[in-house]
């Protein structure tokens, strides 16, 4: 129905807070809400939702294995690998699995067909539900460098007839692009500080590069200055919600609780945020 990504350039601006509260605020009115945690390096949404997991699956990337009986040590695999994951010695091929991107070129291009591929696990995806809310998430194994294949595996769980809320990782590079690309709308969560503004600018460039309509939530809106809001006005980014700093909110977050479960006014505000997004999306998609 709608794939809605929650992203930010800067970390710790409140992406997970917004994603979780938005999902929970919609639950009473909709039967088809799902939340997908694509922040696979530091996945936290499950800590607030406490879902019951029904499915757990290891996700891997295909890495090469060399059949040393067939190999003639010609060096072609090492030559075609752009990531230096294969080193061919006199009578041995060394494979540096953690450098492999799983592109498959070595196996395909080996003239002796001496390379096969097997899946090396890099993390886990889990799915389940928390009441009416469907939940899925990815969990990168600590020590693993490459998160995009795992993020893509989480995104495969998206159900097309659902309101799918995607909690993206921070930043503006490949993991974020994997999480937000193909979404219908990107909500950028920022804070009104110079760091927040600098990173909002980067995130806003990213969504325009990907051609996504976007809107902004300003978190801790009373800590800092008004340059962020001015920026949004100039960039034509609608500010859809402001969340002031509040020790009670901070305390709920610290305990792993969602404010909409405790406070009707906040539930109303997050429902209004969703209306803001769907209204804004229509405006944007008009030719």
């Amino acid at each position, binding site marked *: 129905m709608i794939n809605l990504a929650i992203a930010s350039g800067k970390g710790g601006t409140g992406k997970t807070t917004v994603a979780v509260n938005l999902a929970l605020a919609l639950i009473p009115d909709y039967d088809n809400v799902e939340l997908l945690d694509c922040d696979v390096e530091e996945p936290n949404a499950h800590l607030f939702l406490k879902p019951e997991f029904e499915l757990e699956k290891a996700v891997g990337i295909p890495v090469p294995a060399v059949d040393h009986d067939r190999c003639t040590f010609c060096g072609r695999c090492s030559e075609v690998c*752009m990531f230096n994951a294969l080193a061919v010695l006199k009578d041995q091929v060394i494979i540096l699995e953690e450098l492999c991107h799983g*592109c498959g070129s070595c196996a395909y291009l080996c003239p002796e067909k001496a390379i096969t591929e097997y899946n090396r696990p890099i993390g886990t995806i889990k799915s389940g539900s928390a009441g009416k809310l469907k939940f899925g998430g990815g969990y990168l194994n600590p020590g693993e460098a490459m998160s995009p294949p795992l993020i893509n595996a989480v995104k495969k769980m998206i159900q097309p007839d659902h309101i799918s809320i995607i909690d993206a990782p921070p930043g503006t590079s490949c993991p974020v692009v994997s999480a937000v690309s193909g979404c219908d709308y990107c909500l950028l969560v920022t804070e009104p500080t110079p760091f927040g503004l600098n990173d909002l600018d980067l995130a806003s460039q*990213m969504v325009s590069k990907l051609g996504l309509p976007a809107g902004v939530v300003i978190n801790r809106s009373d800590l800092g200055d008004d340059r962020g809001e001015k920026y949004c006005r100039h960039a034509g980014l609608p500010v859809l919600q402001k969340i002031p700093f509040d020790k009670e909110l901070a305390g709920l977050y610290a305990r792993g609780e969602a404010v909409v479960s405790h406070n009707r006014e906040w539930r109303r505000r997050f429902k209004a945020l969703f209306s803001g997004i769907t209204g804004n999306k229509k405006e944007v998609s008009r030719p």
Partner: protein
Amino acid sequence: MKILTVISGKGGTGKTSLVASFASLVPDRLVLVDGDVDAANLSLITGAREFESHDFSASKVAVVNPETCNSCGLCLELCRFQAVAGDFSIDPVACEGCSFCAFACPREAIEMQEKVSGRWFVSRTPYGALVHARLGIAEENSGKLVTIVRNKGQELAKASGKDYLLIDGPPGIGCPVIAALSGADAALIIAEPTIPGLHDLERILSVCRHFGITAAVCINRYDLGPEQSKSIEAYCLKEGLVMVGKIPFDRAFVDSMVQGIAVTEYTGGALLNRISGVWDHFLNVAEQLSG
């Protein structure tokens, strides 16, 4: 010279504010590196003046020559990154730069072109040199760019006989974090006293252990989650991690950031004492553990 990396796992715990503050405590004795090349902010509060800048080109992108291409479709079939469109044009954002299509194309119609995917800079600050970078929007290879700024910082620190290379690490646990941690003598984890903060602390600690790097912990804004703060302290005790101090929530962090300066240049008194206590304690840990 000691290489010290400040990390957090979770974003927004206060790494950059604290790195700038630490630098202000030991002016002229260190070189700074901003290891967050996605969203680099350290230059915003250290009075940085850029005096050197370089292109970063580590990756290639496939380009199809439509004149030679006979639309056989092999590239589309082979590409595992969904970078080849139905009309055999390449999506440069999705392209991983693996060159598989270029090697496999029977007509040799695909060329791999170098692309500039970012820039890196050396700046002067009142505390010492700062090496930082800006990865292009939606680009790859952030780990490689982190390695470049880290190596440059290390080279500068050695050449000028500094005591410390202080690296402001990126959030997360993936490739840029691993690059920022590599070769570090000790890591300082800035933890947030929340349930997610504790969860992320456990994950970043596993990364440090995976690479054999000693870590100490500092809790920032400890008073915003007093119970979780206690849980983190208990966790550190259980895991044998040194707790080098706790810093309270203080609006001075945001106010000083708005002024473009480190909080230690903005306010004195109790907060300054807390921050310098954390730094001194961390240095002691780094000295002892790394000999």
